[in-house]
């Protein structure tokens, strides 16, 4: 009998990995979905248990050596508060979107491909979880490829609704591969210098270098990683792959990606910049905080402006996501406790808010057949619960008090004050006002428009969709009203990152 408790970190990856492969053999009908729900549900339960174990143990981290190989030879999985938190987000959102997917996927994807869809879907989640849990730099790359390749496939599966999904997927494939190869190169150069792939070991070896700040190999590695990671997390102006990919992907996939994929990219940046290179090198010796802050600020402003111009609600939310990544990046590049905490807490807050909103749009696509803003006109009369969720999520994007978005903004602005970056505070708040404009485009259409065409005959979304939507939106409200758990976890995780622990 396997000891679950002792092997918890490994199981979080192994169970969905095997479960995903096995999903291929589940045949047709409702079985693929049921299997996927079971696997993602079990994984979510494991991440919950992981978090509880970590909190109870009181230790700064839990280390697990795969196959009992010593960590400088083999692969180490290491869970601290930061990645336990991110694991919870990825597995939780993964589970909730899987529950939601039944009707939506049934509508958007041909019946004979459901088993393949769910297999790829579970593997994508596996990849994201693996990146988050591993303490080995090369393992990050391997799992990054697993998640990337599966995500390309998932996006392309939107082709039965709109052929443009294929080009969107290809575009992401090209840019994503460039990003991944940059990351691989960066890891390779780091290994040349340090002779190890274990993150903690890498950090220690780097710190031992006398000429760290001038070592060309290290500098090249840093540059490759910075660009590669920025591509993966869709930091402006390397976000070009994202809007189309989110727009044409199947609805459930858009929600999963928006909530988790770019967030895991940010997590990788945490590990590399804070963990491996260390705060001193990344943010003081190198001017990366200036570059990142500038890109993040430009991203917040320009992608919010782009969002305002969109006619498709999904594209609008996609551009909004690019802007929200700007907040997250701006937060951690301040490299002070409030800023980093704001960044971490916003990963969670944005995941539940935007995830919920994409799910709501999926429900609208299911009932109305499209997500053009014209399709939303007057929809609140027909689908009050779905539109209500979309509106509440929108308030969260603006950062209204009593929504989770407000909590993030509080930390970010306070962090900006603490770092004497008044300009950033202005950008963050200006971003909120731009968000007000694009969210209000949706709200006015839904609540004050006159329904026409299919909108006029639409019915409220089925319960199987409404419940997941409202779980996510409800969480975004709950953690806006009482942010003690998220706030404290993020603050502690931020302290860990700034302390330099990998």
């Amino acid at each position, binding site marked *: 009998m396997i000891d679950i408790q002792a092997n918890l970190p490994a199981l979080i990856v192994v169970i969905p990995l095997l479960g995903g492969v096995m999903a291929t053999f589940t045949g047709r009908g409702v079985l693929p979905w049921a299997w996927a729900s079971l696997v993602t549900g079990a994984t979510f339960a494991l991440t919950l248990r992981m978090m509880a174990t970590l909190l109870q143990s009181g230790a700064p981290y839990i280390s697990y050596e795969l196959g009992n190989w010593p960590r400088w030879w083999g692969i180490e999985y290491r869970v601290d508060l930061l990645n336990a938190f991110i694991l919870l987000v990825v597995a939780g959102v993964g589970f909730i979107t899987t529950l939601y997917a039944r009707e939506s996927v049934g509508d958007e994807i041909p019946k004979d491909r459901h088993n393949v869809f769910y297999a790829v879907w579970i593997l994508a989640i596996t990849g994201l979880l693996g990146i988050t849990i591993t303490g080995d730099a090369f393992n990050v790359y391997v799992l990054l490829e697993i998640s990337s390749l599966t995500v390309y496939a998932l996006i392309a599966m939107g082709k039965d609704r709109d052929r443009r999904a294929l080009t969107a997927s290809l575009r992401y494939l090209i840019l994503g591969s460039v990003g991944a190869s940059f990351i691989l190169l960066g890891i390779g150069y780091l290994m040349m210098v340090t002779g190890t792939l274990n993150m903690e070991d890498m950090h220690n070896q780097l710190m031992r270098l006398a000429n760290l700040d001038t070592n060309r190999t290290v500098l090249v590695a840093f540059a490759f990683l910075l660009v590669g990671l920025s591509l993966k997390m869709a930091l402006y102006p390397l976000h070009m792959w994202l809007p189309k990919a989110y727009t044409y992907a199947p609805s459930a996939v858009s929600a999963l990606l928006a909530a988790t994929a770019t967030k895991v990219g940010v997590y990788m940046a945490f590990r590399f910049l804070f963990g491996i290179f260390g705060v001193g090198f990344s943010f003081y010796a190198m001017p990366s905080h200036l570059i990142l802050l500038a890109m993040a600020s430009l991203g917040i402003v320009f992608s919010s402006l782009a969002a305002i111009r969109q006619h498709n609600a999904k594209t609008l939310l996609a551009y909004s996501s690019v802007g929200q990544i700007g907040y997250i990046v701006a937060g951690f590049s301040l490299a002070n406790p409030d800023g980093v905490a704001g960044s971490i807490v916003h990963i969670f807050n944005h995941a539940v808010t935007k995830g919920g909103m994409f799910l709501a749009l999926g429900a609208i696509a299911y009932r109305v057949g499209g997500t053009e803003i014209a399709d939303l006109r007057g929809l609140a009369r027909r689908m009050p619960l779905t539109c209500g969720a979309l509106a509440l999520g929108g*308030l969260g994007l*603006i*950062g*209204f*008090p*009593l929504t989770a978005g407000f*909590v993030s*903004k*509080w930390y970010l*602005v*306070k962090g900006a*004050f*603490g770092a004497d970056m008044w300009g950033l*505070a202005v950008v963050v*708040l*200006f971003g*909120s*006002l731009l968000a*007000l404009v694009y969210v*209000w485009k949706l709200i*006015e259409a839904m*609540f*004050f428009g006159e329904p026409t065409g299919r909108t006029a005959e639409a019915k409220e979304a089925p319960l199987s969709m409404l419940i997941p939507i409202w779980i996510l939106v409800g969480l975004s409200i709950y953690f*806006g*009203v*009482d*942010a*003690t758990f998220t*706030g*404290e976890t993020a*603050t502690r995780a931020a302290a860990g990152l700034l302390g330099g622990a990998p």
Partner: protein
Amino acid sequence: MTGTELPLLAMAVPAIGAILIGVFGRWPNVRELVTVLTSVTLLGVVLQILPLALADDFWSTTWSAEPLVLLEMLPGIPLTLKIEPLGMIYALIASSLWILNSLYSVGYMRGNKEKHQTRFYMCFALAIASVMGIAFSGNVFTLFVFYEVLSVSTYPLVAHKGTPEAVRSARVYLGILVGTSVGLLLPAIIATYFFTGTVDFQPGGVFQAALADESLTAPALGVLFFMYMYGIGKAALMPMHRWLPAAMVAPTPVSALLHAVAVVKAGVFSVVKVIIYIFGTTSLVSAGQGEWLIYVAGATILIASCIALFQDNLKRRLAYSTVSQLSYITIAASLLSPLGYMAAAIHIAAHAFGKITLFFAAGSIYTAAHKTNISQLDGIGRKMPWTMGAFAVGSLSMIGVPPTAGFISKWYLLSGAWETGYTFVIVVVLLSTLLNAGYFLPIVWRAFFRAPPEETHHASMSHADGNFGDPHDHGHGAKDHGHDDHGDHGEAPLPIVFALTCTAAGTIVLFFFPDIALGLAEQIYRGLPLP
């Protein structure tokens, strides 16, 4: 029982009322009965709190007690509720006028056959719940949270008619209110927390320590003061006043209670509260900051009055009058003297009674005669004597003529200006009194002493000029009344007339019995640290 949990009850009553209104939405009679009962219950609760705020040992007992923590929203920053005399005045006015306004709403909404009435009553109750939250907020963070909830919960009320024009105006409304509060007020609050480590209200202010150890310089304090004053967009300080005329597109009960009392008073209440309990007289005076507010508020008073002179739409004229009157409160507080604070507190009450009467009258005219413009009001006082009589009383209070409440606040304001030596304020008050008379008295004169117009079939006149009447709705109303728009109409429905008579009477009663308002105003004064 110390009574510290009563403010929570005051918030819970309208919030529960909103839920019940939603539950009973299908039965209009029950729904409206629930509204009225909720408002009466709320006044009962608020009256329970009143003795605590008036007690002689208020500052040493109720104020010193631990605040009621609603919940800890961010680590270290809880939402708290606390009884405080200025908030008491605000809560008392909002809750007592809500009863009359509910009666009035029943008459108005039915008389005009408005749609979405359940949503209307629900949002209204929610707005009142957030008003209670603002009035009893224990720290500026709580105040901010409920301030924003108030903006959002009143948005559907402003956009109520759903016409493109209503939606556009509501966009201006929300855009300015949220824009100023998120863009200026929120960073100001975060900066306050950053510099002082607290967001609690304290008589005398919170910045003294930060100023003393020079972590906060005087110019920085000035910037913060500016951010607070313009961040509170609901106080309608020019040029942030545009949302208020825009909000007039709402049904009249909304304009009456929310945009003459609850929402705008949330603004000036926050201004006064921030000046007294966040900045404090000493800090502002010693840092030499904030004097500009006197001049900006003075300019707002005069400019808004001048604009009001040229408005033909009655509600729009009232809106600009409100902009001007709000700055009376701001200017009084910005004198930074005890008499000024008292004037501000009393004017919050005095203006509320007067202005709600005027709005009730405007809505009454719209319901009975479907008229929205002043030029159409010739001789209407003969058909609607109660309405126009009340209107006259309200006008007198705006001008500040005894025996109306407006006189008392003006008296204190002038005394405060005299005491502090600001001749500018005295001049502004005198000029504005003339202007007030100039834009209110002609309406009264026209209504009572001009002959009604000849019977012309110009049913579409108000249609063309009435910016605030929904054209469709109006056409519908005109059809009901046939073509005798200018002909046979009497007084408005009984609930409307009853409500506006009560508020007009209240304006006069407040002149003869100002004890409660004065008592609470003095209580604020007693709490201030000795100079």
